[in-house]
């Protein structure tokens, strides 16, 4: 039986369990499950937003409010169908979230949550102060949802509607997380610059996730309004936003079912505490927040943001099966222009000139090594070439077109892929997934298609491609191992495989041989020569001189940001300036 069939059977079984539950469970549990479903929808958005992409929002309840109030106003005041209310609510949520996302998502880490707190407080007061919305007392008499002559006017009937939507959202979100888009989100959370280097447009991807989470919240609001048939501002305030985030934290950041687990834990705990607390404290009041707060602090101290989601690690969705051929090869651009041409490039950090008027070319099919003492500006040069740093002066060209004005995520499309001096892999993800991410810019499948299960063939091609590159660096034994379990030298090889998966014409390797054993270095050298033979050029930074001298066709020597020498290994070995820079004195 194929993996996808097993999966389909699993989801079907879950759906049957929930359907049967809807008929046999007593009223009390149905109500409880209704709330759990509503909260799960919102928490699910946060699993993608916070868990996968590393964006924290304290404003989800406000989106729930937008969904609820829109349908309340349209269906009571204007007498329109709740389904129109749903469309309008989602539409408004979409517009508001796009605007807020554009405003806040470009901000670095800590402003974003503060920003979300502020606009959610602002929206809360708007709900409570518009007379047409009934002010603080709210609006009553919201009509029930009708569909095909069926009226969803009881909790039990709403149960089916709520859980149809919730299960569908879980399925879609699970698909997204296990797709090209999900890999991009995790890469973005892990290290935004690396994600950009492999072609992820970080801003667009963050906006997509933010809007998706907002729409789930808006949907939850619509269901909420028609379940209670009454809305007032209080469930849409900052307190509830915090609670949603807690649900996502309790459920763990990495798994869609964590959202359901987190919602269930918090909802049931609150139910229990509200019964038990007055007995303990002899007073009534909102005291369960003490417990929730303490629980979250404890959980974070023990387990950071993984929550109880580790429970779901037992169930690991298998990667798609490989197909018989890999991704179509990236079209090689012809011409005799150099693959990289660095022309008079300079970069200052304050008073320090890290790179000073450096020029050199990397021709097709050449291995060029960049050497120099520590602090010579080698890694800075890599960052300048791959668009992570802006140039102060000079130009960078590739294959006859200028690339120094491109955004980082556009450069990989020009045939440049790189590895990093400090390994940047998603440590918890498998080697295979990390390498698959390398093919991001060669593939097209967006999050929406992935969510709906369209265009899955591409995933099979990507797996094949990634497996091929992993074999190429000799790591096939560790394919499904989490990248973090590998030795540092092996992790460098994973980075090389990931860069190869991008199908580059020019491979930029930052200290690829560091941490490798002797035999592994020899294999790496063989691999680099193979690449050269197939027409790929390599620019590498390396301190192991024996390795460099053995593999490089040309060597560029940097010292204090300036180009000191450029020539064949033999020339460099004899160059008195190089000897002086390295040995601190002239060798007579």
């Amino acid at each position: 039986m194929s993996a996808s069939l097993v999966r389909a059977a699993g989801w079907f079984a879950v759906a049957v369990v929930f359907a049967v539950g809807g008929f046999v469970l007593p009223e009390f549990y149905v109500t409880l499950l209704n709330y759990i479903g509503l909260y799960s929808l919102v928490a699910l958005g946060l699993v993608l937003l916070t868990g996968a992409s590393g964006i924290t929002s304290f404003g989800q309840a406000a989106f729930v409010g937008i969904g609820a109030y829109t349908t309340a106003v349209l269906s009571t005041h204007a007498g329109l169908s709740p389904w129109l209310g749903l469309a309008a609510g989602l539409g408004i949520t979409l517009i508001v979230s796009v605007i807020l996302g554009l405003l806040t998502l470009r901000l670095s880490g800590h402003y974003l949550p503060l920003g979300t707190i502020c606009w959610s407080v602002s929206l809360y007061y708007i709900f409570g102060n518009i007379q047409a919305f009934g002010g603080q007392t709210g609006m009553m008499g919201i009509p029930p949802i009708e569909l095909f002559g069926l009226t969803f006017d009881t909790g039990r009937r709403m149960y089916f509607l709520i859980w149809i939507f919730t299960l569908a959202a879980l399925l879609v979100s699970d698909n997204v997380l296990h797709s090209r888009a999900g890999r991009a989100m995790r890469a973005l959370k892990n290290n935004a610059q690396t994600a950009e280097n492999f072609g992820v447009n970080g801003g667009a991807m963050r906006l997509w996730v933010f809007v998706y989470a907002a729409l789930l919240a808006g949907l939850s609001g619509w269901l909420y309004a028609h379940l209670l048939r009454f809305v007032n501002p209080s469930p849409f305030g900052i307190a509830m936003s915090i609670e949603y985030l807690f649900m996502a934290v309790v459920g763990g950041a990495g798994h869609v079912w964590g959202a359901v687990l987190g919602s269930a834990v918090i909802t049931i705990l609150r139910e229990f505490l509200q019964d038990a607390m007055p007995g303990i404290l002899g007073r009534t009041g909102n005291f369960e927040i003490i417990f929730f707060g303490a629980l979250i602090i404890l959980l974070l101290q023990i387990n950071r943001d993984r929550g109880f989601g580790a429970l779901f690690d037992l169930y690991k969705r298998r990667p798609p099966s490989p197909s018989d051929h890999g991704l179509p090869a990236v079209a090689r651009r012809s011409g005799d222009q150099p693959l990289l041409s660095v022309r008079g490039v300079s970069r200052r950090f304050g008073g320090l000139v890290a790179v000073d008027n450096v020029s050199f070319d990397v021709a097709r099919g050449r291995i060029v090594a960049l050497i120099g003492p520590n602090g010579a500006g080698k890694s800075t040069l890599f960052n300048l070439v791959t668009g992570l740093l802006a140039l102060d002066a000079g130009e960078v060209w590739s294959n006859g077109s200028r690339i120094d004005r491109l955004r980082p995520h556009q450069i990989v499309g020009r045939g440049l892929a790189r590895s990093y001096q400090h390994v940047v892999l998603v440590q918890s993800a498998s080697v295979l997934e990390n390498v698959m991410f390398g093919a991001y810019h060669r593939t097209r499948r967006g999050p929406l298609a992935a969510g709906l299960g369209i265009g899955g063939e591409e995933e099979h091609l990507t797996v094949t491609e990634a497996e091929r590159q992993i074999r190429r660096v000799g790591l096939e034994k560790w394919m499904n191992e989490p990248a973090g379990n590998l030795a540092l030298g092996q992790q460098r090889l994973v980075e090389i495989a990931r860069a190869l998966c991008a199908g580059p014409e020019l491979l930029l390797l930052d200290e690829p041989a560091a941490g490798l054993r002797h035999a592994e270095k020899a294999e790496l050298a063989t691999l680099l020569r193979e690449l050269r033979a197939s027409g790929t050029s390599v620019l590498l930074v390396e301190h192991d001189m024996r390795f460099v001298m053995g593999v490089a066709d040309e060597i560029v020597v940097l010292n204090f940001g300036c180009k000191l020498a450029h020539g064949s290994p033999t020339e460099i070995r004899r160059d008195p300036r190089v000897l002086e820079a390295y040995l601190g004195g002239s060798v007579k």
Partner: protein
Amino acid sequence: MLLTQDGLVNGAIYALLALALILVFTVTRIIFVPQGEFVTYGALTLALLQQGIVPATVLLLLAAGVMAAALELWSGLRSPHRRRSVTLAMLYTGYPALLSYSLYYHIGAPANVAAQVLVTLAIIVPLGPILYRVVFQPMANASVLVLLIAAVALHLVLMGGGLLAFGPEGGRTSPLIQANFDVGVMTVTGQSLATLAASMLLIAVLFLAFRHTLRGKALRATAVNSVGARLVGVSPETAGAICFTLAALVGAVSGILISSITTIYFDTGLLIALKGFIGAIMGALGSYPLGALGALVVGQIEAFSSFWWSAFKEAILFASILPILLWLSITHPATGDEE
């Protein structure tokens, strides 16, 4: 003019809070949402003392102290610094125990205003380092995001604790200074002048202490580079504890100052802290003078919008953050190398 005066007084308090928030953030990377709870605790503790009641916050302090001691012993007894952690644990439990014992059985609530303020500070300020020890020190190396969630969780715990200690009723204190001055057509209350003066003084003291004392320099070093500071012998734990002491001090003082101007409820803290945050954000969470200036602006926006369109006061105030964020996002684009 009256509005300007109102705005100035509130703004001065927000400025104090903004400074505390910037201090805590730069040194410990914690976005300290519970800062507002120090304000409410300070205000309501003083309010209870003025009614002649020994406030239950002292018991909260004791409870937190016991937890801190337990944690200290748990981690300390297996480390080479056993003596130090035993001393700390005794301090964590001994001080609150002594304080509650003497308050409940000997002194009671003092009648003298100055003594009331002192007792309030004696209860609230130690909460800072104790809470740091219990909540944040065990996860000092976590990401900004995780620390923020923990801060929000602590805010909830403290808010619940506040409800427990003070009940749902609001509290208001009588002005510390009764005098009024007539300046032209308007009356300036002594309290608002005192508030302004006290905020200015505290800001100046903090500023000078940072510039010129060794501890201040150590804190600044930790803010710039915590690993580097540790290498030259500045303990990040000590730095964190000092920051939280200062934050608690600033919060309690703000609470004492504001409590005669507005009624404070157990859940007022978040809104007050958020206004401080807006000020701090205007200063891009890094610059003290800009943060203070931003907070004064917040005070003005609040005063004027409450006059013209009071129902939407908070909405306007918090929406005013959006253009600021937009401006920030253009000038400080996400570099992505945060966590």
